[in-house]
């Protein structure tokens, strides 16, 4: 005979308006083994918690059922309450009568009947719940940050300054990310490099940061507190200890100026021996194995020109890739974004005309360290344009491309208008076609107003197509402010494309067991209350890999993620949730199927005893081994077959 208490929550009117809580409480009180049944408006409040605790004492309860919202919402809250009341926290069962009942059904009578079934089955399970004890595991105090853009830089610096050792992994030869490609930043027009470079230098010199560039993450194992991350160090073919960054190799490279530069978005050229940009950190050269003549054909003139030119003898064509394991306690993912390829919208003629470019390409033209040294020259004839037309929302807010708003397009285009006006003078015509201008941030609206005063021709509407007329581009646009159809003849068209997840986001998500939202960006655990957490404990996200955002928001989120990591790493030990797999040693035949199916490598075969075991530190309680076990030897604690069958029996 057990002594179970049932507590029914009204959740204001969320539950009460669709479920007769009065009748439900009365019904519960008559169930076998239920010694007390109570109701309250907000069970998760202090008063509700006291009600539960007092009832436990008064009726000597040994099990509790709370009929309320989803366990994802308040299971944790009520476990603590029950524990405070003196009952083992794992002898709590939640009957979800909100998300799975009152919110989704219309008929009050039927909803109440369903709620009764839910409570009845929860009581049936509560009768068989075992008391469980949490165990602890030691925490590795080091952190890993994946991605060296502004988000990764900020998170690394915050953690390093907190005293933690940080591995910062970047797959490109230099950190800096998208921000290093920008000339100025909106709305303050701060020079992007001027505010970014000091931070990059700080990362490069920080005693607590181990900077790993030209390195890719290939696998992640373990769980919160103890991750093992496999990384692949790509060969740079340059000994970074010897390289001084003098540039003699790049100057000597036979392919100099013949390879399209990724950093310049294809607007400029580089050689096979290159440094992506002058402020690169680390200030080391890299040899591009995909193009280098010596590496692809085995021959580069008589001798490789770069190797001959290097005084430091830093060029080393014998370098091989290295696989390294990093042991860390928590991970921050800051892998950034890609721009939508405007070729997906053929009507804008991006593939047809060199004079139709993207914002990021214009950014490289405006940049003083860019291929034109900051001069605005139109790509087809290298002449100054007399008219530039911007088209916003290219692929954004578009049900056939990207349904979301890119959040930075409006402001980046306005910034470009300002910079072009500054560089090209008052006589150049600047047109801007927009649907709405979204200038929501601090100082943004004021900046928008400033740009409106710069003789900007604002057209509210989106052109249907851009026609390449050879020496100019022709655009028909219907302007809804005047209700008129205009024809614009312009020298250069700048497209503002949507922000999209990295092309390899899905593969990367699989590697780390992250979830993606419908748009493909990494999904946060809760959009409002856990915006940096993922569904994998100990892995956090920040910056544009979570969704489009500007630098301000990216930096804030990165600092937030760093602080979430510090919360974990500052503890010596972590409690492990005991709701994980266990083995019925008598039933186990040692077949090893569970070892194969476990995605977390938490199942191991004990060769001596011929049974499978569970590594409690690694097991997440996903249930894969329980489903796979042919001999019913894999058990999920407090989710046993016996408990479930009892629930079913009771309501049938």
């Amino acid at each position, binding site marked *: 005979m057990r002594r179970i208490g049932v507590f029914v929550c009204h959740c204001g009117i969320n539950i009460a308006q669709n479920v007769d809580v009065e009748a439900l409480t009365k019904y519960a009180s008559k169930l076998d083994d239920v010694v007390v049944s109570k109701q309250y408006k907000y069970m998760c409040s202090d008063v509700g918690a006291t009600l539960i605790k007092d009832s436990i004492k008064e009726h000597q309860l040994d099990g509790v059922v709370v009929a309320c919202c989803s366990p994802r919402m308040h299971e944790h809250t009520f476990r603590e309450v029950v524990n405070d009341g003196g009952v083992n926290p794992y002898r709590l069962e939640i009957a979800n009568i909100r998300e799975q009942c009152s919110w989704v059904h219309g008929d009050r009578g039927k909803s109440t009947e369903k709620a009764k079934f839910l409570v009845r089955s929860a009581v049936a399970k509560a009768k068989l719940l075992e008391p469980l004890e949490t165990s602890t595991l030691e925490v590795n105090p080091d952190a890993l940050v994946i991605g060296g853009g502004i988000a990764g830089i900020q998170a690394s610096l915050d953690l390093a300054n907190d005293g933690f050792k940080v591995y910062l992994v970047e797959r490109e030869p230099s950190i800096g990310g998208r921000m290093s490609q920008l000339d100025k930043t909106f709305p303050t027009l701060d020079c992007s490099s001027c505010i970014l470079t000091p931070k990059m230098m700080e990362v490069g010199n920080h005693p607590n940061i181990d900077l790993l560039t030209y390195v890719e993450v290939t696998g992640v194992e373990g769980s919160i507190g103890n991750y093992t991350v496999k990384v692949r160090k790509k060969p740079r073919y340059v000994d970074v200890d010897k390289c001084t960054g003098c540039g003699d190799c790049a100057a000597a490279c036979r392919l100099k100026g013949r390879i399209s530069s990724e950093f310049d978005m294809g607007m400029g050229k580089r050689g096979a021996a290159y440094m992506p940009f002058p402020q690169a950190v680390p200030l080391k050269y890299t040899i591009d194995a995909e193009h280098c003549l010596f590496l692809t054909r085995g021959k580069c003139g008589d001798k490789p020109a770069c190797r001959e030119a290097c005084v430091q003898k830093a060029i080393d064509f014998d370098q091989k890739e290295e696989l390294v394991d990093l042991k860390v306690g928590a991970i921050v993912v800051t892998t950034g974004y890609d721009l939508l390829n405007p070729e997906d919208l053929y009507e804008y003629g991006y593939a047809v005309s060199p004079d139709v470019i993207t914002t990021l390409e214009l950014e490289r033209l405006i940049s003083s360290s860019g291929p034109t040294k900051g001069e605005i020259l139109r790509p087809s004839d290298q002449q100054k344009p*007399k*008219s530039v037309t911007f088209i916003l929302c290219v692929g954004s807010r578009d049900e056939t491309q990207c349904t979301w708003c890119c959040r930075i397009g409006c402001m980046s285009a306005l910034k470009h208008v300002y910079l072009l006006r500054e560089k090209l003078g008052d006589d150049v*015509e600047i*047109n801007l076609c927009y649907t709405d*201008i979204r200038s929501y941030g601090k100082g943004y609206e004021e900046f928008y*107003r400033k740009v*409106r*005063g710069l*003789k*900007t*021709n*604002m057209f*509210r509407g989106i052109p249907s197509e851009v026609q390449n007329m050879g020496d*100019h581009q022709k655009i*028909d646009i219907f*302007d809804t*402010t*005047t*209700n*008129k*159809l*205009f*024809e*614009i*003849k*312009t*020298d250069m068209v700048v497209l503002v494309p949507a922000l999209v997840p990295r092309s390899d986001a899905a593969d990367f998500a699989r590697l780390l067991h992250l979830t993606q939202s419908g748009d493909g960006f990494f999904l946060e655990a809760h959009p409002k209350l856990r915006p940096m957490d993922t569904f994998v404990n100990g892995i956090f996200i920040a910056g544009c890999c979570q969704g489009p955002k500007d630098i301000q928001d990216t930096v804030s989120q990165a600092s937030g993620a760093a602080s979430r990591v510090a919360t974990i790493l500052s503890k010596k030990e972590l409690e492990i949730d005991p709701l994980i797999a266990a083995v019925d040693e008598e039933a186990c035949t040692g077949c090893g199927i569970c070892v194969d199916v476990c995605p977390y490598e938490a199942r191991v075969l004990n060769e001596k005893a011929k049974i499978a075991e569970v590594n409690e530190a690694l097991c997440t309680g996903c249930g894969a081994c329980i489903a796979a076990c042919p001999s019913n030897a894999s058990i999920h604690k407090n989710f046993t077959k016996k408990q479930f069958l009892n629930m079913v029996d009771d309501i049938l």
Partner: protein
Amino acid sequence: MSIVDLTSMGKSQTELRKEINGQLSKLQDEISDYCFQCAKCTAGCEAHKLLELEPHKMVALLKRGLIDEMVNSDIIWTCMSCFKCRERCPQRVAPVEILFALKNMAVVSGKQIPGKYTAMLQSILSIGLIQDVQEVTTRDNKTMKRDELGLPSLSKPCDPAKFQVGLTKIAVEKV
């Protein structure tokens, strides 16, 4: 390079636009370019309710430099100069001032002025006022005389001939 209205083949009259914006910035410190087409002016426009004057559209056409189209339209004469648009514009653009500028341009270009305006002009030249207001209707629909409301009687020029000469002189200097 160029922007053309494909319906009328009208092109932007950049110089005129500059001139009107120049006048506006003197009167209101702001130019039409700042207008973001919220249409608050039209929503409150007294003339719109009776005559479909759309001040926000006037500003949009000015921004685009399509000025002839407006000068040639009778709609500019329907503004009753209540100045509500000027008072309430969130971007401190004053559509009413644009209409004054357009009216002046219409006069200069020899366009026919509506008869009511000539009568008003006559009234100004003789008494200094568009209307000799002696009575008002209150919200309770009662007719009240000036003295009943405690208002002084309207002052009139003591020397109408001298007043007319002075006024004409100012008008000539301003236009």
